């Protein structure tokens, strides 16, 4: 070919490439639009229910956690050096709360409501008294009448209402005292809240009208928190807000901040990698096109096939790029070794195709997991990887064919040091054996909360509130079922009595049955009254007391006709506060739901009620998901193991050679071992995120193994071999740049991915570069 024609050809090729660059950009824009369009059509389910096999008890647990008043509870905590300072600070804080944008509603009775409750109890005292002791014996009647008189004489300004005369035996203070004890003071507020025993700290329990993921409103809550902290510190006191909303905000803010750093670092690293190895940043845009296209096709298909998709699967999908980019980089690295696209494809298509098939095979077994999240991960993974592969093969490669130009020929940037070293091979064997030794010691994460970041300050606040006030926002509930509310109330009341009896009154829980006893309990009390109350005895004692003989005639009439006496109704506002919140409906079945403030108490209650054959349920999102989580993780690991077997079978069918099948799989196996070992040393064991990494490194590791194995099988020339290793290094570097930086995250689920990915990829690379060539060269006796 003459020089003139060669130059014309080169100019033509350059023009074609420039045109193709704009086509590439155009495709990226189209794909980006499709992603935007599709995302709007898909509802993302951010719940964690899809992680677990369908289970009735777990459904109840998660529904209770989502529907409980706990999710909207906000606690205001104040501590000062003495009561006087405390009251001062409380006043200022009340002012801040009243002036805020957020509507706070007290979750405990106001003074006004407490007075109403007090009068309700007085009026109904004969039926509300629990009759744990007999108050109708002479000594008791005398004692109680005197106590009532002493109360009047020590309270000169007391304005008695009508209900006062319905409680001659002064039952009301005891009922109030019982309520105060079992509610830790929540039914008997002072200054609109609760004081600690030493009067140095105070809490106010409020409800808001937004949940844990309404972040715009939670930001306002955070601002109020800052304000009251400042107000208190000016008066040398401490005050803060405590709620589950703040946990969610802190996690989200931290993740957003870290992801922005991670994204920036990743972009910088990717640009550096592409510049270092390819000397052309425009290639990064070509490489991006199939990936963006893969996501676009996946989202488009999902938007028509499924209207709702799990957030967990979506998050996993974001990591698919780590696998898919291998096909692109392998092509970009190799394309200029050959003069035409056909020649490139002849040399590397089989390794690309085998890599693709074996990666897909890694997902297949997840379809049989009976877990919604894994099913969704499989669907997402299969569609996206297939799309990326097909786009890179049928679109990218024609858009970016080999130029045949020496100028465009990619040079080898990295020469592998100590290549084929025996010593390094033995080191590899040693490391692999050490990793295998860890296998029996594998532990599994059993607390889903450990996947979040540590919230040091919020946990400190939680402890302060729990220690002084027996209050928390942990989702632990005692549940009673029944055909009717009557039945549920009866069960809860009898359970309360059992718990108090077996713990000598030390342990208890609030049930609305204290102030609204069911008919069965009322009947028992009526029977007790009929059996033990003696009118003559009472009148005799009354005559000797300071009270007039006819003072309590209405009450006596009530006792006489006790069988027909019904409870006076609660006022609506008291009912809304102290009765309605205890009932919840889950899937058309009603439950009586009682919050238990800590796990030790829940365990004590559980032991007592179980030993007495009571029908109840303790719902604890952490405890209930524990076994399920471990089971999921074990099953997931088992499925990954099955996938290894399937991939081996596919490789054997292709290679028809045990050694080649083994070497192709080896990087994936060692990467998996490294991932498991990393989980042992970091966090609390193998968790969901380690599983995500396991699936990823299976796909990536087998690609490396296939690229190297085929290179040796097809007896690539030295230059081809060097480019193969360089492509593997670039793949590893891009993967590490995407995931490795995650290791620095404060969020444990993100750092789990980062740390395990780093070690797994390092091991896969080490295996591919230093183990496989040694094994394959020995095999071929080259």
């Amino acid at each position: 070919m003459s020089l003139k024609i060669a130059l014309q050809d080169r100019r033509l090729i350059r023009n074609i490439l420039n045109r193709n660059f704009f086509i590439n950009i155009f495709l990226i824009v189209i794909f980006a639009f499709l992603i935007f369009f599709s995302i709007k059509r898909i509802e993302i389910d951010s719940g964690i229910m899809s992680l677990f096999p369908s289970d009735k008890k777990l459904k109840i647990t998660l529904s209770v956690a989502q529907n409980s008043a706990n999710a909207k509870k906000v606690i205001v905590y104040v501590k000062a050096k003495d009561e006087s300072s405390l009251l001062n600070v409380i006043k200022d804080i009340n002012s801040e709360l009243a002036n805020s944008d957020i509507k706070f509603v007290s979750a405990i009775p106001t003074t006004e409501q407490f007075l109403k409750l007090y009068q309700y109890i007085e009026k109904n005292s004969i039926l509300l008294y629990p009759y744990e002791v007999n108050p109708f014996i002479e000594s008791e009647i005398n004692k109680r009448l005197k106590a009532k008189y002493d109360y009047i004489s020590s309270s000169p300004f007391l304005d008695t209402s009508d209900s006062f005369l319905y409680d001659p035996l002064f039952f009301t203070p005891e009922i109030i005292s019982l309520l105060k004890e079992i509610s830790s003071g929540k039914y008997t507020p002072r200054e609109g809240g609760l004081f600690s025993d030493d009067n140095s700290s105070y809490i106010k329990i409020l409800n808001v009208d937004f949940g844990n993921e309404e972040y715009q409103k939670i930001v306002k809550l955070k601002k109020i928190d800052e304000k009251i902290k400042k107000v208190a510190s000016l008066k040398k006191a401490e005050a803060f807000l405590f709620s589950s909303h703040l946990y969610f905000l802190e996690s989200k803010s931290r993740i957003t901040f870290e992801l922005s750093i991670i994204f920036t670092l990743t972009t910088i690293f990717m640009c550096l990698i592409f510049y270092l190895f390819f000397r052309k940043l425009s290639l990064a845009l070509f490489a991006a096109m199939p990936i963006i296209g893969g996501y676009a096709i996946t989202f488009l298909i999902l938007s028509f096939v499924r209207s709702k998709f799990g957030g967990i699967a979506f998050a996993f999908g974001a990591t698919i790029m780590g696998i898919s980019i291998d096909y692109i980089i392998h092509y970009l690295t190799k394309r200029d070794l050959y003069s035409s696209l056909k020649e490139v494809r002849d040399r590397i298509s089989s390794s690309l195709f085998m890599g693709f098939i074996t990666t897909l095979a890694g997902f297949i077994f997840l379809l049989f997991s009976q877990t919604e999240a894994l099913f969704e991960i499989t669907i997402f993974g299969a569609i996206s990887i297939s799309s990326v592969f097909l786009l890179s093969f049928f679109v990218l490669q024609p858009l970016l064919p080999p130029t045949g130009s020496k100028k465009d020929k990619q040079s080898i940037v990295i020469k592998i040091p100590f290549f084929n070293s025996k010593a390094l091979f033995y080191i590899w064997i040693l490391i692999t054996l050490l990793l295998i030794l860890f296998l029996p010691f594998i532990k599994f994460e059993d607390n889903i909360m450990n996947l979040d970041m540590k919230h040091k300050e919020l946990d400190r606040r939680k402890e302060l509130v729990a220690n002084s006030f027996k209050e928390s926002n942990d989702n632990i509930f005692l549940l009673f079922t029944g055909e009717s509310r009557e039945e549920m109330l009866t069960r809860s009341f009898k359970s309360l009595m059992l718990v108090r009896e077996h713990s000598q009154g030390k342990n208890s829980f609030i049930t609305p049955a204290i102030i609204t006893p069911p008919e069965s309990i009322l009947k028992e009390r009526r029977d007790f009254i009929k059996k033990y109350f003696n009118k003559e005895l009472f009148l005799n004692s009354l005559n000797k007391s300071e009270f007039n003989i006819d003072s309590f005639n209405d009450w006596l009439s009530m006792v006489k006709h006790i069988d027909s006496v019904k409870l006076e109704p609660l006022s609506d506002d008291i009912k809304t506060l102290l009765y309605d919140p205890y009932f919840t409906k889950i899937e058309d079945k009603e439950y009586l739901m009682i919050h238990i403030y800590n796990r030790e108490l829940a365990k004590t209650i559980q032991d007592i009620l179980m030993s007495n054959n009571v029908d109840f349920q303790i719902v604890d999102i952490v405890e209930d998901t524990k076994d399920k989580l471990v089971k999921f993780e074990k099953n997931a690991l088992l499925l990954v193991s099955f996938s290894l077997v399937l991939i081996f079978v596919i490789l054997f069918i292709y290679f028809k050679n045990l050694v080649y099948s083994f070497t192709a799989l080896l990087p994936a196996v060692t990467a998996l071992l490294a991932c498991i070992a990393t989980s042992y040393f970091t966090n609390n064991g193998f968790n969901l995120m380690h599983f995500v990494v396991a699936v990823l490194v299976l796909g990536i590791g087998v690609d490396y193994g296939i690229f190297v194995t085929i290179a040796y099988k097809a007896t690539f020339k030295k230059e081809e071999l060097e480019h193969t290793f360089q492509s593997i290094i670039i793949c590893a570097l891009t993967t590490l740049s995407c995931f490795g930086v995650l290791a620095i995250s404060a969020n444990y689920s993100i750092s789990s991915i980062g740390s395990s990915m780093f070690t797994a990829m390092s091991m896969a690379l080490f295996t591919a570069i230093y183990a496989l060539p040694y094994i394959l060269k020995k095999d071929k006796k080259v």
Partner: protein
Amino acid sequence: MNNLFLKRAIFVMAFFTVFNFLYTNGLPKPKNNQLYTDYVSYKYTPYLKRPVITTGFIALDGKDKFVFKQLMPVEFVIKRLNEKITFKRAGMAEVVIDKDNSNAEYDFFFLFDEGYELLKEYNLIEKDIANGKKEFLITPKNKSNYSKIIVIAFDDKFESLELYFNNKTVLRYEFKNSITGQEIDKKYFE
């Protein structure tokens, strides 16, 4: 006035804020706003055979210093020192009263300064003179938990105060050994 809190506030303020009312309405007031007086109270209720009798003292030194101390049968003291109002019962810690959110029992102290205004707003006041003594009849304009308050005063001192409640309770205060216009011993406010 259906509000329970307001009813109680009116009831109790009726007694103590009447001091302010009387003194700020051109009626007898202690010289220099200084007063010390012993009292005996009698609470007559339909359900008790005998009245509940309490004894104690009241001291006033300017607008911002006021103390009501019951000595028998159970000791307690309610004090106002500037803005701070406190209550202390024998054997219990002192409690600061928040007028916006506290038990009705303390209501009458909250509006000490505002009591006169509230009293005038919600009540009719009639004055009479008999035997050289001034007699005031205070009746609520609207439905309330009390029916009337009768106050008898001589010169710048109270002699008696009676509150009549709708539940047939009558609370009567008799004031003795009253001293006005002289410096009040600080010990009464401690």
